[in-house]
């Protein structure tokens, strides 16, 4: 772990307040997306950060208001920061039960990015997302210009439906996980037997829920070829991309398989695509304050790198008409 875990995941003491924020609605595909842009409290550095979260019903402010805290903190570093809710989530409109990583909400990202690029002081954007949000951003990236960087933390690399990530794993995968997990190794310490029983029950129910009788035929154990193409294009445009994971993330296992194949080849030849395991803990879902702090620190480091790199117009940009 790097740094100290702070009470709210990140420190926001030196940042902005709602007085530096403008809420907005953006229409896309007949749905209205809700978002808030936080404007810098010091001279803007020209970079706007677009934050996007996964699909666990997260509102625009993110889990434990992490996005709010980050946006207000980064305002003190000269960044514009936009937090928004995808369609069907938070304040945004729409109904959708069909969340699939092969069909991320790229149009939503594009709409928000276009709106952001119209704001005074914004010259380029950086995309920072988690899980489904990260995939949506990478999907949208090819249509975004000027794009200064993309960080997915973590980014799923298989094309699976919501709640079906585990469904395509064989039974032996579950058995291996169970036998190597911490609680099982210490099962004979019965002093916490009641807690352990609850945990086991919870995990069993989860297993049952995550392995439904019928799963989407689109699900695959392979690295997404669609994602690979998008990463290749970003590499060709010389756009910095970071895919960051925790060692305990299940998604990291998928990435490791990918690194043995075409993703590994891409990373070896590209100077801008970085795939890394930056912590030993689990960060997927931002399920504890430590993970939130780690993600905040890693994204901030990436942003500062981008700003340092792009004192000049971003190299990934295409010529404007």
């Amino acid at each position, binding site marked *: 772990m790097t740094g100290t*875990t702070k*009470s*709210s995941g990140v420190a926001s*003491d030196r940042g902005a*307040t*709602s*007085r530096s*924020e403008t*809420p*907005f*609605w953006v*229409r*896309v595909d*007949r749905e*209205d997306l*809700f978002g808030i842009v936080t404007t810098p409290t010091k001279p803007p550095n020209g970079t706007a950060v677009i934050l996007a979260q*996964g*699909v*666990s*019903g*997260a509102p*625009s*402010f993110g*889990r*434990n*208001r992490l996005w*709010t805290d980050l946006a207000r903190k980064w305002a003190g570093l000269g960044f514009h920061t936009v937090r928004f809710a995808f369609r069907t989530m*938070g*304040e945004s*409109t729409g109904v*959708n*039960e069909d*969340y699939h990583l092969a069909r991320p909400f790229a149009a939503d990202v594009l*709409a928000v990015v276009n*709106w952001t690029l*119209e704001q*005074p002081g914004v010259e380029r954007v950086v995309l920072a997302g988690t*899980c*489904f949000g990260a995939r949506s951003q990478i999907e949208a990236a090819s249509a975004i210009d000027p794009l200064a960087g993309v960080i997915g933390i973590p980014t*799923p690399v298989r094309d699976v439906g*919501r709640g079906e*990530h585990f469904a395509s794993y064989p039974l032996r995968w579950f058995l291996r996980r169970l036998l190597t*997990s*911490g*609680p099982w190794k*210490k099962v004979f310490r019965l*002093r*916490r037997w009641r*807690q*352990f029983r*609850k945990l086991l029950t*919870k995990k069993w129910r989860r297993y049952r*829920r*995550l392995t439904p009788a019928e799963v989407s035929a689109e699900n695959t154990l392979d690295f997404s070829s669609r994602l690979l193409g998008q990463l290749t294009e970003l590499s060709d445009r010389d756009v910095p991309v970071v895919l960051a994971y925790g060692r305990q993330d299940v998604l990291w296992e998928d990435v490791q398989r990918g690194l043995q194949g075409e993703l590994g080849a891409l990373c070896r030849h590209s100077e801008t695509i970085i795939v890394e395991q930056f912590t030993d803990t*689990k960060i*997927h*879902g*931002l*399920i504890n*304050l430590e993970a939130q702090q780690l993600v905040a620190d890693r994204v901030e480091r990436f942003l500062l790198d981008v700003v340092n790199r792009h004192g000049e117009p971003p190299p990934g940009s295409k010529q404007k008409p």
Partner: protein
Amino acid sequence: MSGEPTLHRVNRNELSPWTARLVNWLSPDLPHPLFRSSQVRHIASRLNLSLLPAGLFSSLNTQALLSVAIRPRLPSNQGTNPSEAIRVDDKTGVKETFAFVGDRVDRLACMTHIPAGEVRGGLVICSSILSDFQRNYRTEVVMSRLLAQRGIAVQRFHYRGTGNSDGSVHETTFDSMQEDTANAVEHLKEVIALQHIALMGTRMGALVAAAESVKHPGSPLILLEPIQEASTFFSGSFEAQLLVRMSRDGLSRMTEQELLSELQTKHFVDIVGFTLTSALYNSTSQVLLDELLPMDPRPVLLAQLGGSTLSSEHLDLLDSLPPSGMAEHIVLPAGETWWFIEEGGEGAKERRPPDEAASEIAHWLVRATGSA
């Protein structure tokens, strides 16, 4: 994006800097800021914008043209106040306004849902806290929209130190949540002309709603799956955190008491990825719902999630209410375990309240508002 671009007639002083920049960029050879109508047409054609009717346009002189601001890509319902954003639903006509509200340094994030037609009642929703707040968020949004379709003006808000509101999480206490609720009630009263604004509290929010309702005699009160003793809520949250630690680190030797001790020492503790502060815990943990319930006769609705009949706990709560003649209950479809938001959305299907539930609450509220 597919937002219909429009031309807005606005005050000359309201021309935004980027509009001027955009126009300059498109037509650098044009003298700025004076434009002839043909030049505006040229700019508009470059942006693929629709224009005002030709007749109206041709009658505009140069001075009038200056009052035309081109605002592409913004929905036509975008508010002009930078602290608020407005949308009007195409199908239902419900107007939704998100605004940062208040004169204090730390303002409240408020979302107001106003019906298209007659306003038959007003409702302020007091959300729960920590994981509950996020878990129920979408449900409360959808519920508010459904209620607004049925003539109920709804005010939602984020407690200071939470969500999009200002303030530090360390400043959130039971008192501050009550104060925020009072501000939300006042805000709704400014929007709609109703004397009696109902309060609805969800889980821990029920304690806040009950405490605030005492200040509004006769106002209807809705308790949605209320927590009756705050200490049980926190006890459940501690247990959830201990389970998570066990899952992550192996069999944790930490007990609930030790977690509580950590809370008092560090002034915060991690509860399943949410920050519980000692300020919130100390100000709330001894609160009991039946001690907060208003004693004056008023309509009260107790809504239970799941089950076929009211639980004995809720029956006791109903018994403890003063005889008002309007203490009722409904049973709504059950949700899942409150404390665990699934990681990365795994298995977390959207929890939308059925239309019938919204209808029941709306009908009750209309009757209750009438009787109040």
